[in-house]
């Protein structure tokens, strides 16, 4: 009986998957352009940046936190990397590493303030959002940093065996994040801290270290997303990524991560990100006028999650 209950929940968890399938089916019937290889390549490439952010923020939300600074971290990373990625200056590894380090450092700073001061993550990362945006503008003097090397631009624009490089990055990140969450001690501690911080503490888990880890990872993934973005638009934009954090958080929550902490999966988050991507793509394909697009987009997202929650109730 107990076993039965646990297994059932396993499917229910991906209830949003059913909603996703429904949306895809609807789109396939209404536009012939939807279910093509080229369109799906585009969808997944487009989704990759939001998905990377969403993976990072999933870790954070499972611990019961939130990260609003993702978009700004992307901008700082992008500007930093771009200024080192002009042709014939440094090898491409330099902007990559420096960019990633910038993101990791900002994430770690978030974690440090949150664990040392007990200021709510919402405020700390909202502050970091503003600070980061300012830093990106200062670093770039308010101007886009362009003229980037071909090897740098390959990251966001290139193909390997016909597969766009961002898709490859997405797949690898998904596997790594899933493994970290499900198969490692850190992952277990992340669930424990979010599920019951007191219990985690009483079990000898160093809660602050776990929190430091998730914000740092989240910063690192935001940096990766920032580099992808910069390379894709071949410019380091100080105002890149504005509002991206909300989409990333939405993807995670649509995918079943609860803001009260303790639950969530990377698969769910991936489906959440894909759902948003597919709706946005579909509405463009159907040529829905832009004002109505927003209304429809909002309604479908709520509808999909309602479908999911009904689904979970009946199981």
């Amino acid at each position: 009986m107990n076993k039965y209950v646990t297994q059932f929940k396993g499917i229910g968890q991906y209830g949003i998957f059913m909603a996703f399938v429904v949306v895809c089916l609807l789109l396939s019937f209404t536009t012939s352009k939807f279910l093509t290889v080229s369109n799906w390549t585009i969808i997944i490439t487009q989704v990759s940046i939001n998905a990377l952010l969403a993976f990072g923020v999933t870790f954070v939300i499972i611990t019961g936190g939130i990260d609003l600074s993702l978009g700004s971290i992307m901008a700082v990373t992008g500007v930093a990397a771009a200024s080192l990625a002009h042709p014939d200056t440094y090898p491409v590894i330099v902007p990559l590493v420096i960019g990633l380090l910038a993101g990791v450092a900002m994430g770690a700073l978030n974690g440090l303030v949150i664990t040392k001061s007990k200021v709510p993550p919402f405020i700390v990362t909202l502050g970091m959002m503003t600070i980061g945006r300012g830093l990106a503008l200062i670093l770039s003097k308010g101007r886009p940093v362009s003229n980037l090397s071909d090897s740098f631009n390959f990251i966001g624009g290139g193909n390997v065996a016909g597969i766009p490089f961002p898709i490859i990055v997405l797949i690898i990140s998904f596997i790594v994040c899933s493994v970290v969450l499900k198969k490692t001690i850190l992952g277990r501690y992340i669930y424990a801290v979010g599920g019951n911080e007191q219990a985690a503490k009483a079990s000898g888990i160093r809660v602050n270290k776990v929190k430091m880890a998730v914000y740092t990872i989240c910063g690192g993934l935001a940096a990766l997303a920032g580099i992808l973005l910069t390379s894709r638009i071949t410019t380091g934009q100080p105002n890149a990524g504005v509002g991206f954090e909300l989409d990333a958080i939405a993807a995670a929550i649509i995918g079943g991560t609860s803001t009260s902490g303790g639950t969530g999966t990377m698969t769910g988050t991936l489906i959440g990100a894909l759902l948003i991507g597919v709706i946005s793509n579909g509405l463009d394909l159907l040529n829905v006028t832009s004002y109505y697009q927003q209304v429809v987009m909002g309604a479908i997202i709520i509808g999909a999650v309602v479908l999911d929650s009904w689904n979970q109730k009946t199981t």
Partner: protein
Amino acid sequence: MTSDYILQVNGLTKSFSGVKALDNVQLNVRKGEVHALMGENGAGKSTFMKILIGLLTPDAGEIIFEGNELKTGDVNDVLKKGISMIHQEMLIVPELTVAQNIFLGRESTSWLPSWLDDRSIDRQSEALLQQMGVAIHARTKMKHLSVAEMQMVEIAKAISNNAKVIIMDEPTSAISDKEVATLFNIIKDLKSKGVAIIYISHKMDEIYQIADTITVLRDGKYIGTKSASELDSKALITMMVGREMDDLFPTSSAVEGEEVLSVQHLSSKGKFNDINFEVHAGEVLGIAGLMGAGRTEIARAIFGLDSYDSGSVFIKGKKTSIKSPHEAIAHGIGYVSEDRKGLGFIPGLSVKENITLASLPNHAKGWFIQPKSENTVASQMINDLKIKTTNAEQKVRYLSGGNQQKVVIGKVLQASPELIILDEPTRGIDIGAKFEIYKLIHQLTAKGIAVVMISSELPEILGMSDRILVLSKGKQTALLSKEEATQETIMKFAMQH
């Protein structure tokens, strides 16, 4: 002589926002002994133990473990050195499985240093639980367990740590006699291996069954340490309470009136089946059964917290279909849940605000709350139930476990019900307060209120009930009169199927 002691605590002091919870407390624990720590609700026992395990840092004092001073405030270090603890308020992670909870912080790893090997902990947990004789699946999520099952898992967790000292803070508050017996066997086994147990409980009989030594705290102060054999229960109570106590079960003066609640053929799939009973005004109906017998589920169904599949509930002869606690309260039903943390109180609200929560419209004119009326009933309840709190404005979060329970009872009483369902009402309540609650139950019945009392403590069931309903695995196996009921008959019906 000192080498004899595995743990020595001296001069321990701790205050919360200026109020002293512990004042220069001491404790000496020998290897292989069961050392009972006794005291009334709010005496400081849990605070003391939380300091030992490293969850709280003391203001002053030293802790010597195996001859070395123990670093305070570092749980991880304390656990590694060999002290573990069963916490009074269950510290579980609901979304993780039973095995994952048992091995939290001590995960098995395989080929990579941080790569989880969950099969191994599943296997070990399964074995451990089987050895303890509890039928809990290692891969069930913790949130699907009943409170009693959670407590058994907490016990499993603490003993699986191979600790040299195990602190048990009210480990039996949520389990029934059968599991208590299991626990005591485990304790005996641990003792023989030289493990020291610090045991906290408000159940006197337990103390005399297993304790070797008893230390008593009162109002955060150290009162004394005695060998259990040289301290009889009257003297112990006097040490704890600071005065002598009367008989535990007061006599009732209530006369049975007309039927208040009648339950007919009540069934809920997988929970309980064909339950029939009625309760009269002025009567106490006890419900006994083993852990998981379905007692709580019946109470929840009657109170509108869960739905049921078939059968009917009559209030004063009128058939009702109560679908929410709001309706239940409107029908004059009150419910004191066994899960006080989950269903009982609002931690962030004050004692006063919790007490009036279920009856707020009675203390309001239109939309506006009348502070005077609220204050009056709050201080009355604090007096009547002897709730130990700094004042009525104190947040319930900061009360000791037993006092939180009293607040919950106070809240339900305030709603002036005609029928009260008490689910494990004296869980975690000290002996003095227990007497107060028993007295209160009689006061209620004397006023013509009907009482349903679910309890896993047989003496309490026997001492208080006019009739006793016995359940086994969701089925009703007996409805005994006061005269028929003995500990043996109840146990017989509770295990029948």
